[in-house]
């Protein structure tokens, strides 16, 4: 909701922090100014690149392919995937790093894409659910979710599938108890957990079979 009080507001800035670059961008968050406002004191002093606050061009490695997109530094990876790249499998539900619906795999690890800035995801391998299917064939985890009816409305499902994939990559032979513990970062409202548990165990078998075969 947008009625939050600003706890910082009563504090008067007294420092000589350079806000030149920033002030140019205030209210022009739309990207009317993109780059080119980088001559802050800091950059002059250190050479570290300061970007934004307007849109900046970034390159993301998504499902093995480089993707160029313009985003403001404040835009999350989740919103970039959903709003700018038409990759809508990851869902925005709590948007605060609690529910797991936005789960993607970054450099081999499951993460909440709602709590990663897109600009910060550069140079890392991002895997979304869209990238799991191979040649139009669903991934073993997706298939197992269907076989075990591990989904109802399906809105938490993409996050769960990614969390399960990440879990199985690290723990290919899980016990039932490990499955219950290993997927504690995802929530479902319809109540599909019984199916999810079975699906993850089935997927583990299927993935092993695929490797052996």
């Amino acid at each position, binding site marked *: 909701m947008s009625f939050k009080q600003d706890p910082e507001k009563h504090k008067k800035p007294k420092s000589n922090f350079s806000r030149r670059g920033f002030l140019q961008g205030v209210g022009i968050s739309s990207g009317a100014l993109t780059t080119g406002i980088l001559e802050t004191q800091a950059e002059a002093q250190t050479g570290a690149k300061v970007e934004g606050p307007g849109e900046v061009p970034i390159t993301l490695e998504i499902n093995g392919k480089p993707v160029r997109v313009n985003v403001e530094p404040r835009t999350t990876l989740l919103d970039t995937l959903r709003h700018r790249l038409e990759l809508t499998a990851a869902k925005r539900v709590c948007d605060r790093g609690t529910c797991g619906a936005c789960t993607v795999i970054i450099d081999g690890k499951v993460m909440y894409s709602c709590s990663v800035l897109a600009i910060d995801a550069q140079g890392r391998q991002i895997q979304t659910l869209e990238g799991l299917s191979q040649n139009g064939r669903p991934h073993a985890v997706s298939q197992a979710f269907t076989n075990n009816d591990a989904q109802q409305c399906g*809105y938490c499902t993409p996050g769960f599938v990614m969390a399960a994939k990440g879990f199985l990559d690290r723990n290919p032979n899980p016990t039932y108890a490990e499955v219950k513990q290993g997927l504690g970062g995802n929530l479902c409202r319809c109540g599909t957990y019984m199916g999810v548990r079975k699906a993850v165990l089935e997927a583990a078998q299927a993935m092993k079979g695929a490797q052996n075969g």
Partner: protein
Amino acid sequence: MANLPDYHWPPMGKRRVMGKPMNRLDGIAKSSGAAKYNSDVKPEGMLFGALLTSPHAHAKVKAIDTSAAQKLNGVEAVRVVANPGTEVQWAGAEIAFVAARTEEIANDAIRLIKVDYEVLPHLVSEEDLSKTGNRARAVGEQVTGDPEKAFKEADAVSEGHYGIPVLTHCCLEPHGQTIAVKGDHIEYFPSTQNVYGIATDIGRALNIPVSNVHVHMDYMGGGFGSKFPADVWGVEAAKMSQSSGGKPVKMFLDRATELSIAGNRPSIFANVKTAAKRDGTITAWESQTWSTGGIGGGNVNGQLFPYVFNKVPNRRVNHTAVSVNAGGARAWRAPIHPQVCFVTCSALEDLAAKLNMDPLEMFVKNLNYTARADLYKFQFDKAAELMEWKKNWHPRGDSGSGPVKRGLGLALGTWGGAGHFSTCKTTIHPDASVEVELATQDLGTGSRTMVAMIAAETFGLPVSAIKVKIGDNSYPNSGGSGGSTTSGGITSSTRKSSMNALQKLFEVVAQSLNVTADELEAVDGRIRVKGNPDRGMSFQQAAQKLGVNSISEMGENNPRQAPQEGLNTGGTGGVQMADVSVDTETGIVKMNRIVAVQDCGLVVNPKTAESQVFGACIMSVCGALYEERIMDQQTGRVLNPDMEFYKLAGIGDIGEIIVHMDIREENDRRGVIGLGEPCAIGGLAAIANAVANAIGVRVPRVPLTPARVLAALERRTA
């Protein structure tokens, strides 16, 4: 004219598709991320909406200044809904909307809107009735029999206080839509349980004929009763689209707003007195209840008390509705039943404990007070067997010396669930492809799959041969998905339209086989003569006889005629039992097991039916142990409009769940009955009873948090 086809369901033993567990048709689409929800769609030129809400629970808008927002580059529309003079009645109430080129800009613009409020006094909590003042309104008293006399003559009287708070639906896909209004046409992509009806809702609000409203929704991310109307955010998004020259506007609520204003389940607080004879026969019920559903108060049908056992002869029922300054209630899986069930089954379990009686024995003993004694008897027996009740139950509190106490509890529920009005069109094309179209929706219940199964059964074809087209209001009218009315409605209309189409095909084929249409049957991909399976042709060959024409036939489920037709009906029963362990040092309740035995008449797809019951049991765990809307009287705000402190059970929190679908000939004969609501009723009460059984004392208020469990234990010791 040919005879009307025989629409009756094939007998149980003769079904090839119905009654067999089947993967949902859209399973892979959902689990591979291909499924596009309406919160995922992004039509060309789409604008992003944002909403400014009231920070105050009760206030008058004195002035509102949107000029800075309007000037912000990228903003295309600003609409004020709370103009000066408007009195807002809850925190989170809609004040103004913005549509902009990006979501970031829309949110920036929202923060540039300045609102001057005159803050007014508010009440946000109903739990302490003595503090609700003139916001409480007595709804009246109902008396049956002579409760006073019955209490006087009773062998045992039990008194208790019980409370179940307001919950919020917390749909994972928030409420909202993408909508485009171009001239007098509306393209509408809502997240809704009401694909057909919502067109009328939005059309009316914009004064555009419903014939010009196109609604489309392939998938939706949870509704649970809260997603029927177009809502303010739908209408305002439409108007912003209008004012920006027809650009589509996407406006979905953020999580905090979703949990604050997009619907909730009313609370009930109750003081209950019950009486029984020594043998466990319930003789009297007296309840004073109060509840809130928001500013309008919260009514409860007193006839529901005592729940299911409502033929108890002596009853006094009082209810008070409390109006609070908080977001309004909406329907929630089995409106008011879980609450009334919790109050009733808790009070009756307490009464059984007072009599030192096994509650199972007492519940069974009083089944003649219910509408369907035989059904419940069977279900209690079955559940007791699955729970090993006799072996595992112990008298209240008699649960050993260690800190972890185990206990069992039970409850029962009932619901209607007869099919709603539904029309359906089935088309057989000359190439033998079959299409079924109806403006229903699949909320995740598996309705899409059910439609395909019914048509496949009817045509003797595999499910893969049926193309199901739902989620679009250009298809024939089918009701909104509420009250567990969908299954009965859509299966019946699909059956009838498909039988009607098949009958037409029979008529075409009959001549060439030299028989009459009513001598034919469709089995295993063939149209053949009854009793003479070799005489016939493939469905493919039959369809080819249509030449260039196709057959399109309608079918209708009309609730008024449905009882005579026998395809669907209402009235289900279910019982649930819970097995918990309570750590009496920490007050933490762990689920061991839930057993659910559930009747829903003819079960079309046992797989998705079972999922419904699993889900309902898990929702019951959430309500029993974790979730509640927490209001702050000082600030008037919801304190936990997030998924961190609005707690839901995770995958490790639910124990094991055993579902037994009560599939028996005598239930099956009644036809299809909806399942979404009935299974979502008893679980919470069963868990609360199990905890009382485990720790030897009633925890009066759910959710059963460590704080409440420890407080109850302390009272017991004192």
